[in-house]
């Protein structure tokens, strides 16, 4: 059943032991764990899936240094590559855990970065989600590489997506770490008291976002996805100061399950909650 070699992606032996105990065995029924809320849990069930277990992967990654010129707009490839590889490592370990469980996919994936004071220039990249399996066997929910699907959608979004005739394929992402040029003295003096577009800055941020989104789109295309839903574009400087920014585009690639994508007409409600 398993498609991923657990040892080659760096899954610790504890993980295999823990996941093994979730499976049913002699005198012991199956057990699942999940960080789904009750709403999510019930809706995932209603969508025809059973939660299998909390799965995660993490990687502590040392981010190298890169020379950047003070007055130049440029991508910092070393940093882009570090941010991408480290997330990919965490994701692949999480996928390997789901694969050990024989799950069809992972919902509610969260990608986080934690900067501990644990070493300069290093960060923990973590991916956490709940592995799920279709209640009715025989469905083809895995990706074309026979890996479990991944999705950062909540249980509610997952239900809605399946109702509307789509299936999640994979969490796709693209990242670009960009150095925004500092303004020269002459330039700064030239714009005093004037309304003017900062062409340099505009160009830098524009290009960096486009690069991140393009990379995300390329990932979706390699999965043969029809489209991407729920894209978030996240901009963070982490520990690099104000002129170095990471642009991360992340979303869920989806494929159609059927031709029409109609859901029941929504009812309007006035919520009595806050």
């Amino acid at each position: 059943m398993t498609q991923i070699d657990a040892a080659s992606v760096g899954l610790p032996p504890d993980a295999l032991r823990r996941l093994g105990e979730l499976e049913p065995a002699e005198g012991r029924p199956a057990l699942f764990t999940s960080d789904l809320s009750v709403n999510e849990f019930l809706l995932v069930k209603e969508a025809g899936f059973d939660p299998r277990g909390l799965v995660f992967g993490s990687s502590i990654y040392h981010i190298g240094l890169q020379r950047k010129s003070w007055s130049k707009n440029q991508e910092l490839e070393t940093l882009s590559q570090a941010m991408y590889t480290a997330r990919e490592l965490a994701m692949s370990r999480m996928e390997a855990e789901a694969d050990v469980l024989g799950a069809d996919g992972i919902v509610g994936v969260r990608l986080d970065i934690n900067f501990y004071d644990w070493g300069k220039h290093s960060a923990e990249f973590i991916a956490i989600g709940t592995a799920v399996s279709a209640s009715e066997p025989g469905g083809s929910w895995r990706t074309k590489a026979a890996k479990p699907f991944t999705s950062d959608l909540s249980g509610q979004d997952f239900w809605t997506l399946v109702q509307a005739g789509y299936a999640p394929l994979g969490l796709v992402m693209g990242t670009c770490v960009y150095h925004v040029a500092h303004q020269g003295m002459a330039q700064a003096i030239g714009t005093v008291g004037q309304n003017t577009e900062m062409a340099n800055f505009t160009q830098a941020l524009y290009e960096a976002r486009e690069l991140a989104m393009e990379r995300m789109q390329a990932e979706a295309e390699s999965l043969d996805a029809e489209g991407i839903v729920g894209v978030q574009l996240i901009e963070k400087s982490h520990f690099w100061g104000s002129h170095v920014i990471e642009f991360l585009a992340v979303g869920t690639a989806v494929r159609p399950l059927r031709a029409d994508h109609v859901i029941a007409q929504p009812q309007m409600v006035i919520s009595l909650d806050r």
Partner: protein
Amino acid sequence: MAPQDPEAGGGPVLPEAASSRLAESARARSWTSDLSPAELVAVRGVGFEPAGLVLGSSIYHLGSQWGAMGFGVWGRTGYYRSYPCPHGYSYLVEGHEWGQNWEHTQYERGMEAAFGLAVSRLLAEAGAIRAHGVVGVRTTLRAVQGMSQVVEVTMLGTAIRRPGVAPLAVPFTSHLSGQDFAKLVSTGWIAAGLVMGVAAVEADDGCGTRQVLSSWTNGEVEQYSDAVERCREIAVHRLERAAAPLGEGVVGVEAELSIREAGTREAKVADMRAIGTAVRQFRRASLPDPPLTIMRLADR
């Protein structure tokens, strides 16, 4: 924390003030709760009524464990891994120390015992007012100021009961809200118990790790990755082991990993706590009504 085996804490479980407060509210036939109005309605809607606000608390001294080689009371029983010098030096060469990752088993057992004591008191209070369970349990953990290695664990929740049903041997506990509890009950699931898992793994840098950290190039810090991964696995594994005798699954797991200093040593300790509610199915049922797609007219 399996409520079936409340930790054998010495002395009377409940202080006198607790017994008299609970007795007073039983006499007055009134109840207190920290349920919101919506939670109250939800809990009543599935046939339960509030019995009273219940509390469990423990102030606990965590024993020390000196070094990976186990000079602590429990010895070296947990996860251990050494990272030899990549340049081939033996352990004692200055600047080429070996790295090691090791589990703080003494700390883990202490934390579990402290949680166990707080849960057993919460259950004793719930039992004293003939409640069947406690919902919305909030757990707080804090270090007691001015005392080293001393923590306070407090659990607060609302005890509920189902009128006309015999009391349970051990009431259930849950960190779920009243609404969540009601949704579970109406779809055939019952909260079976609050479960938790704790793990702490210390990473003492080896010279190989220091080399990666001071390099100019990208690279995974394998020793740290392993420490953190193991820490998560061990904590969730413990939570799952606690849940297995109680129910078929665990929902709403809240996990928190932090990195703290290891006492006076320079090393760092990854510290993970996971808490969730074990659930058990008592009736096969789908949602009473199919989910209704709605358009919210509020901000969110």
